[in-house]
């Protein structure tokens, strides 16, 4: 057993890695759903249906799957997955309500997850294993953060989620060096900056279309910034206890996601703060994604109050018409500049 799949960015991949597995994020594929139709209704989002399709087609080279509490669809997918594969399945109950109570409960869940991984691996996770895994990801995430501040690299971040972190590290280092070298000489900032906020988007071409329309992207996607960004700075951990506490804090303060409910409506505040540096906002939402679509109308209203133009792109994977997206993006660009 080598590779452990996961869906949600709230999954503590550091633990998976520390157990000696490669954490691999499972994302929807490029094929239309056919086999999954027998297991899931068509009003389920294409990330969940598409991932199941890949499982049923035998495309996934993983031995176990972790379902971190996210949304109702993923919650149900766990059992469907288990019944239709030979994979080991674990569900990690990440709190939905993020407040003072969450930390202790999450730490308990992290220990349970650790035991499960040890059982799968047949070997104990030491505090040294976890420490080095935490350091590895902190370093990689630091690089990704720097890259995304300058110019999001969606190919790279997809690799960071689906390949071994150590492999991607060198690539990320190279990219950072390139960007640092370029930075001084290219006043290449385009005239319109746009915050792209939304669900998963493994189709890199969609992001390219946004750039080709003339925008430079500030990212808030589940497969972008939200994969690596947390408010909690990396720190030295010297025992299992410290490591688990650090992980709990890190993930509780991960860039806010609409599947969580935050004290003081943190997600709205976070987005409204981030849009100060942009001219417009694109909502890149997966059709049927309830958490995002519930936030959308009120968030849009707040953004409009701030004078920001917004565009809603509702996606279903695989994308049928890039041409249509292109036309809408071009029209939106004209409106913004």
């Amino acid at each position, binding site marked *: 057993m080598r590779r452990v799949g996961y869906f949600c960015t709230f999954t503590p991949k550091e633990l998976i890695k520390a157990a000696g597995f490669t954490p691999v994020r499972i994302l929807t594929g490029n094929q239309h759903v056919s086999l999954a139709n027998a297991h899931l209704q068509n009003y389920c989002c294409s990330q969940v249906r598409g991932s199941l399709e890949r499982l049923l087609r035998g495309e996934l080279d993983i031995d176990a799957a972790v379902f971190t509490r996210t949304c109702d*669809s993923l919650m149900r997918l766990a059992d469907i997955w288990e019944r239709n594969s030979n994979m080991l399945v674990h569900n990690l109950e990440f709190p939905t309500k993020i407040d003072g109570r969450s930390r202790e*409960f999450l730490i308990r869940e992290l220990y349970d997850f650790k035991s499960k991984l040890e059982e799968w691996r047949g070997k104990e996770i030491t505090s040294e294993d976890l420490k080095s895994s935490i350091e590895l990801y902190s370093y990689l995430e630091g690089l990704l953060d720097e890259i995304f501040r300058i110019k999001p690299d969606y190919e790279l971040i997809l690799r960071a989620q689906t390949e071994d972190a150590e492999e991607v590290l060198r690539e990320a280092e190279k990219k950072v060096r390139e960007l640092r070298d370029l930075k001084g000489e290219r006043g290449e900032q385009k005239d319109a900056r746009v915050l792209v906020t939304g669900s998963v988007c493994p189709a890199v071409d969609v992001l390219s279309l946004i750039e080709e329309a003339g925008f430079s992207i500030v990212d808030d996607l589940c497969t972008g910034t939200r994969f690596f960004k947390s408010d909690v700075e990396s720190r030295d951990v010297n025992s299992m206890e410290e490591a688990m506490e650090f992980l709990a804090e890190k993930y509780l303060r991960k860039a806010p996601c609409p599947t969580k409910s935050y004290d003081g409506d943190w997600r709205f505040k976070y987005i409204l703060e981030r849009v100060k540096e942009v001219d417009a906002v694109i909502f890149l939402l997966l059709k049927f994604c*309830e958490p995002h679509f519930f936030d959308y109308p009120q968030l849009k209203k707040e953004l409009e109050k701030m004078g920001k133009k917004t565009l809603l792109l509702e996606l279903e994977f695989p994308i049928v018409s890039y041409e249509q997206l292109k036309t809408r993006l071009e029209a939106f660009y004209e409106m913004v500049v």
Partner: protein
Amino acid sequence: MSRIKKLKATSKMREIMLAYYMQGKQAEEVSWVTSGAPVEFLYAMDVYPIYPENHAALIGATKMGPNFSQIAENEGFSQDLCSYARCDIGSAMVGSSPIGGLPKPNFLLCCNNICNTVVKWYEVLSRMFKVPLFILDVPFVRKELRESYVNYVEEQLYDFIRFLEKVTGEEFDESRFREVISLSIQGVNAYRDVLLMGRHKPSPLTCFDAFLNMAPIVCLRGTETPIGFYGELKEELEERVKNGVGAVDNEEIRLLWDNIPIWYELKRLSEFFIDHNACLVADTYTNAWTGILRLENKSDPIRSLAETYTFIYLNLGLELMAEAINRLIDVYDVDGVVIHSNRSCKPYSFGQYEIQKMIDVPSVVIEADMTDSRVFSMAQVETRLEAFLERLKS
């Protein structure tokens, strides 16, 4: 003349619910609350609980679903969102509904043991009304109820007591609370006894009767009302049994309904089954409320509430759900299951295809939505059901 044999109790229920909503308009302290939340705390603190889900069902039953959904949709709420939420948000936006809108909340209580949809829905309400929102966060019980889950929920219940004391300015009275729990248990017992009447052959009631008469156990659980009401309803059903009267004449097939009702089609569906001598003798939806009976004979009420409200039907993994369905199949001696694949309720509907393979009798899936009739086709549903009933009869 409709072929549906109406229960006298149903008109009584309408009076009860009308009074319930009217009283709500006079109430000083109102909380909007999700259907799976521990309402016992609210009654114990003299807070008036109002159920947007029940209200949305009422909107659905009066065929106003598309109307109020549309208001929310015009505001940007997607048509793919839960139709209860759309109806409720639409109704709250314009302040009207078949009962003249709901009284404004002083605060909101949301428990995600039925879905995570309610968390988002109540966040929207909290921003709309600018009132505090208390979320009771319940871990999902995929395989087993873990002690750590119960601990987490129990701690939050104590947080909720403090929250209540703060917003009401009153102290939590434990003896009053124990009284409410006792009333809650008595109410649920009386309710369960009504549902169990469906075991008789022929059954004196259908799940449509259960749906129509479920509001008191949802909204008034913890008060005297459901105890009396369900007691009377049971007597009426006993009378039918004594006289050999079934809800469906010549009951040939006994069925179980899965998922929330299709509120705007109760009548036509009722008649369809009557015409086919098929009786839906029970359902997974109304039976979900009987789970509260786990509370009985427990010395620590808060701890057992935490346990009870975590182990709620919709919060269970598929194996546990299928076990529960198989128990109902056994208790009510049913021949088949009618599964409503409900566009509006993902946690209830996703996994139904697996459940079909895990249960002991044949089943059929029909596609619909609980309140949004725009996505419903009676002709399609009838064709599927007819084929299914034929298969069962042969």
